[in-house]
Each structure stands twice: as structure tokens, then as C-alpha cells.
């Protein structure tokens, strides 16, 4: 690669973006799978949440790696956006972007920023309270004093009581879908995969970008209307 660092070349940055995207898309699939159990069987959801919340490998290896992956994806996304803006210092008076490229492909930074804002809310709702309970209060039991069973499903249902929060979640997931609609296949193209499988992969990418957000929306609405 380039003499001044592995990410100083435009193709290396593309590939780094694609690799972090693959990692995050796999995480989304795993997150949805676990969350879906909250609809199917509450006990399974509680058991899985307790496992994920207390397992050493998940807590101290996978969780930091995930956080790094998220930060890396956003930081390199911003770097790309800034570099790309500076590559055209004087804008066109008339520019018909929609004539040759989809809205999704032209607005990845916008959908990405909405997802970033959503993650702030999501962390505030679930991740920060979990950190407080475990690392400040020192409570790793997953229980609430005086009650039976794990607390995770109860907390989840409680969060989705508020219609405003559910509305924000739904809108954010729609934008996540739009982000994935371009991002999924773009990541494969960046890694050099453009061959006889591309047509099929594009269809799979569209299905992925619809089904993953739809699954999260279903879970949020299910708990909102069944609390």
C-alpha cells in the first residue's frame, strides 16, 4: 500500500469501510436473532441476554471489538465524506444526481448520521443502564430485588411503552434499511466482487436491507402493543 500508512490510499479506505460494514451487518443479524426471541419466548430472551451480559468473551472481547468497529465505520465514513467534498471545491449550479444514481447511494452520510443519532438514544436506553448496573452497582445477577426471573424482557417492554420512542425507533430503522440498500452491495463491489453472482447478490442485498429493519420494527411495535 502507500508509503505513509495503510489507509492513505483511496482504495484501501474503501476496503476498510467495506470490511467494517461486513462486520456490522453480521452483528445486526445476530442482534435481530436474539431480539426476535423476545417475541417468541421471553424465557429464551432472558437467558440469552444474561449469557451475553455476563459471558467473559462477549463482555470483554466481542463488545470492545464491536464498539471499535462502530467507531471505525463512522470515523472513516466522515473522513471519506470530507475528502470527497473537497474533491469538488466549486459546486455545479445545476446537478442532476438522480439521473444516474439512487437516492440511497448519494445520501449515505445522511442516513449514517441518523443511525449515529439513533445509536446515541439506543445506548442511553439500554447500554448505559447495563454498564451502570454491572460496573458501578456491581450487580451481575440480571435480577431485580424482590422479583423472580431475569429483568431483561421487563425492561425491554417498559422501554417500548412510550409511543414517541417507538416512532423514533421505526423511523431510524427505515433509514437503516435505506443505508443497507446501498451499503450491502457497495461493500462487495469495494472488495472487488463483481462477477456472475453479482445479480443474485444484489437481490439478496435488497432482501437483507428490507428484512433486517422490518424485523426490528416488528419487535418494537409488538412490545408497544403488548405491554
Amino acid at each position, binding site marked *: 500500500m502507500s508509503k505513509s500508512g495503510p489507509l492513505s*490510499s483511496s482504495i484501501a479506505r474503501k476496503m476498510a469501510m467495506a470490511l467494517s460494514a461486513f462486520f456490522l451487518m453480521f452483528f445486526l443479524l445476530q442482534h435481530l436473532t436474539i431480539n426476535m426471541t423476545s417475541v417468541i419466548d421471553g424465557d429464551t430472551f432472558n437467558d440469552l441476554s444474561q449469557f451475553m451480559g455476563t459471558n467473559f468473551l462477549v463482555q470483554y472481547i466481542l463488545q470492545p471489538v464491536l464498539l471499535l468497529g462502530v467507531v471505525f465505520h463512522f470515523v472513516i465514513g466522515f473522513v471519506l465524506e470530507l475528502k470527497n467534498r473537497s474533491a*469538488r471545491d466549486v459546486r455545479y*449550479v*445545476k446537478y442532476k*444526481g438522480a439521473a*444516474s444514481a439512487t437516492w440511497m447511494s448519494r445520501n449515505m452520510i445522511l442516513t449514517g448520521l441518523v443511525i449515529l443519532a439513533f445509536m446515541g438514544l439506543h445506548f442511553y436506553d439500554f447500554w448505559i443502564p447495563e454498564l451502570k448496573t454491572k460496573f458501578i452497582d456491581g450487580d451481575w445477577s440480571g435480577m431485580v430485588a424482590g422479583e423472580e426471573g431475569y429483568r431483561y424482557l421487563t425492561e425491554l417492554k417498559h422501554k417500548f411503552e412510550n409511543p414517541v420512542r417507538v416512532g423514533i425507533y421505526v423511523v431510524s430503522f427505515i433509514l437503516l434499511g435505506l443505508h443497507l440498500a446501498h451499503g450491502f452491495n457497495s461493500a462487495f463491489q*469495494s472488495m472487488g466482487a*463483481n462477477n456472475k453472482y453479482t445479480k443474485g447478490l444484489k437481490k439478496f442485498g435488497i432482501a437483507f436491507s428490507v428484512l433486517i429493519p422490518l424485523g426490528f420494527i416488528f419487535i418494537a411495535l409488538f412490545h408497544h402493543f403488548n405491554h
Partner: protein
Amino acid sequence: MKLTLKVWRQKSANDKGKIETYPIDNISEHMSFLEMMDVLNEQLITEGKIPVSFDHDCREGICGMCSMHINGEPHGPDRGVATCQLHMRKFKDGDTIYIEPFRAKGFPIIKDLVVDRSAFDRIQHAGGFVSVNTSGNTQDANALPIPKADADTAFDSATCIGCGACVAACKNASAMLFVSAKVSQFSLLPQGKVEAKRRVLHMVEQMDKEGFGNCTNTGACEVECPKGISLENIARMNREYLKASVSSSK
């Protein structure tokens, strides 16, 4: 046809530049866009004004010299043609047409609609060639067996005329489609494989030095390219680059 032209006028590279409005009449729908520009310039000269500077050469769609951004798209609303092959029948009587230069930091404006595309030449000089011994003992190229599919794909890549529409269309002003076509046309053939690693590393390095943006796979370049250069070329260049990066000793 009666038209209103909104043309970017800029006296020199350092001038700020602005859009000027020119009404124009008696335009035949059979005229090419460049012929319409010739009519405009004759009108401006008659009025004692400075004609609009614009690039053109063969006017047959093969030299890649014409470079106008017309109504928000490089080479205008038609597909698979350069500005010289765009005809006025693509417009309607009474239309307002915006005419701007290709805009990118890598393509600085020289005057009006003329931009400096020598960045493409420097990228080519960095590796877009095959070193052949021309001492008189050169092997006949036809003596090398090449699968037809490879020859056809290499030829498709080689049809890139280097006009810069890919850069002009891309929201990031990325030159990836041009560079990838030039990398592909050699890397697919046995003559080009010898210098393949050096070529892709040097050409990408030069492309980045010229200030072009990063590709985000919007595909606008492929749609606007007058020669239909495919995004497959960019994927191939990415593969070549990855292979060269992990195996190159430099």
C-alpha cells in the same frame, strides 16, 4: 427552436466566474450541440462580445475532447454519446439549458468551459503502458494466444476515451472508472501482466495525488460514460490493487 442558454463564463483560472444568460434563436433540431455552440459564438462575435471557449476536436465521439456539463449531466441528457454526438432534437423549443464545465479539483478551469484534464495524462504516465522492447526483434502480438473473452473484455475497457465524464458525474469527483479502465485494458492481456502490480499501485497513487475523490459505488460514472465503461472495471482494479499491495516488496 428558440432557447435560453445559461453558460458558465470565467475569464481565467483565477477569475471567480458566473453564469451568463444568452437567448438564441433559429436552432435546427438536426444540429449537434457543438454546432449550436458555434451559432452562439458567431452571434456573440457579431455583437462584439467574447465567444465562449469550449473543448472540441474530432466531433465524432472518439477523441474524448468535448467536456460540457449540460443541464446537470456530463455530455447532456442522452446516453452513450459525448457532447459532440448530442443533438438538439433532445431539447424542446423554449427550453432553458445550463452549460457548465466539468467540475473537480483535479480538473481546474482554464477558461469558460475548458478544463485542464492533464491529470489523466499524468495518471497514464504513472503506469498506463506496456514496456516493449522495440529493438527490431519484437514478437508479433498475434503470436500470443489470448482467450477471446479476455480480448473482448480488454477491448471494452480500452474503448474509454478519457473524456472525464465519470469524474464530472460522480458526486465525489472520483476518477476510479477511468483509472480502472486503463488498468483493466492491460491487466487482462498477457503483455500487461508483467507490470501489473507496479501499474496499479502507481496509477492509484497518482490518482490520489491529483485530488480526485473516493469512489462510493454510486454507479453514476457508468451511467454517464459515453462509452459504457462498466463498474466491473473498478472491481477488477480493487482486486488487482489488493493483490499487488499484499505481494509487492515495495
